[in-house]
């Protein structure tokens, strides 16, 4: 598993590394950071669901409503941006 350790700062770089590691472990194929996982057929829409659940569990976020669209999960960079945004919002609102 690649559950994020609480003591390391959550940056785009660490996130991308962790997501890449998760993908490599689960789909047993190397992928690029900006590769379109769905267009290249590496990932099925079924696996995308597992990605949603994994990101929610690993980073303690809820991905709902408009955020829950395929485009947010197309690339490792896209997923990392989504997690950063969802992690950032509650802190900005002061109720972290």
């Amino acid at each position, binding site marked *: 598993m690649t559950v994020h350790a609480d003591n390391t700062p959550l940056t785009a770089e660490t996130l991308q590394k962790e997501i890449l590691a998760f993908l490599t472990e689960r789909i*047993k194929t190397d992928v690029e950071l900006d590769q379109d996982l769905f267009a290249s057929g590496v990932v099925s829409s079924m696996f*995308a669901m597992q990605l949603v659940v994994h990101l929610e569990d690993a980073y303690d976020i809820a991905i709902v409503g408009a955020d*829950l*669209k395929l485009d947010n999960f197309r690339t490792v960079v896209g997923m990392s941006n989504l997690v950063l945004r969802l992690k950032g919002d509650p802190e900005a609102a002061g109720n972290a």
Partner: protein
Amino acid sequence: MAEKPTLVKCLVWDLDNTVWDGTLLEDPNVELFPGIRDTIVELDSRGVLHSVSSKNDHDLAWKRLEELGLAEYFVHPQIGWGRKSDAVKLIAERLNFAEKTIAFIDDLPTERAEVNYHAPDVRCYPADRAGELTGLPEFSPEIITVDSRRRREMYQAGFRRDAEKDTFNGPDEEFLRTLDLVMTIKRADEEDISRVEELTLRTSQMNATGVHYSDAALRALLADPDHEVLTVTLTDRFGPHGAVGVLLLERHPELWHLKLLATSCRVVTFGAGAVILNWLIDQAAQAGVHLVADFKQTERNRMMDIAYRFAGFANEPCACLAVLGEPVGDGVQRLHLLADRREGPTTMRLTSPELAAAAAVEDAVA
């Protein structure tokens, strides 16, 4: 009307002095009690699974069951020297059944008490009631379909499939392609409705609307030209999965309204929901209509939520929604999609009717 008891989905049998007359270790040629075979075969045909929890030498007991021609009826048999409550709980866990859907039959009161103590939801029966079981309501499903009769076969195919998946080293999608999956979407007839009724009763997890359509309600819609009732079956090289999905669609001139989509939780890992939705979206695109799906979020249908969103459904306003009026039921959202052409699935073969063509014919007639 008295409340119907929860149906038993698996009956766990003791062997010595319950299934057969005597103790195997004392008499290697023990014979079945009269009527036991009939009870096992009858319950099997109703879709009730059988298992075993017996304190015995595993190899000897299994060999005797094979000699008696009964071994094939038992799934996940637990034969050994451990606690029977552990065996019963393990069987429930392996089958992914709630303990209240498991029954246990044993001649010894102490064994029944032990199971009852550690697994209070399991219903226990003394061995001398074996002959009555087929007459009890908890062993009598109202509807017996082609899928109930094949339920054991479907579970056994599932075990072989899982074993093969565990040893497959590669992406899931590649594994799926090795299964030779064939999905058939068809317009429902009377018999299909019975299979669907059972599906909507059994699976709340993947029901997107949380609305239960009764057998009678769906039958009435079969004859309605504005509605499509569709059923989905799936097979692969290990055998049939049976009826795994149902759709209820109402046609309006500018939009198709998806009122019900329920799929069996057994086929989630095959991405069946996404395949069905993509097919429907492609059909709607060919017919030149928008799609609107009723969706009610529950604690158990998250996967369906994700499937809808990933297919492109969203809470977006559209003028087409005006014809639908208010949704029925609390918390039902209307998800909207501008249909576009979609590629067929890459992981399975799909046989399906042409909904778009039927719509065009009806428009021409009208």
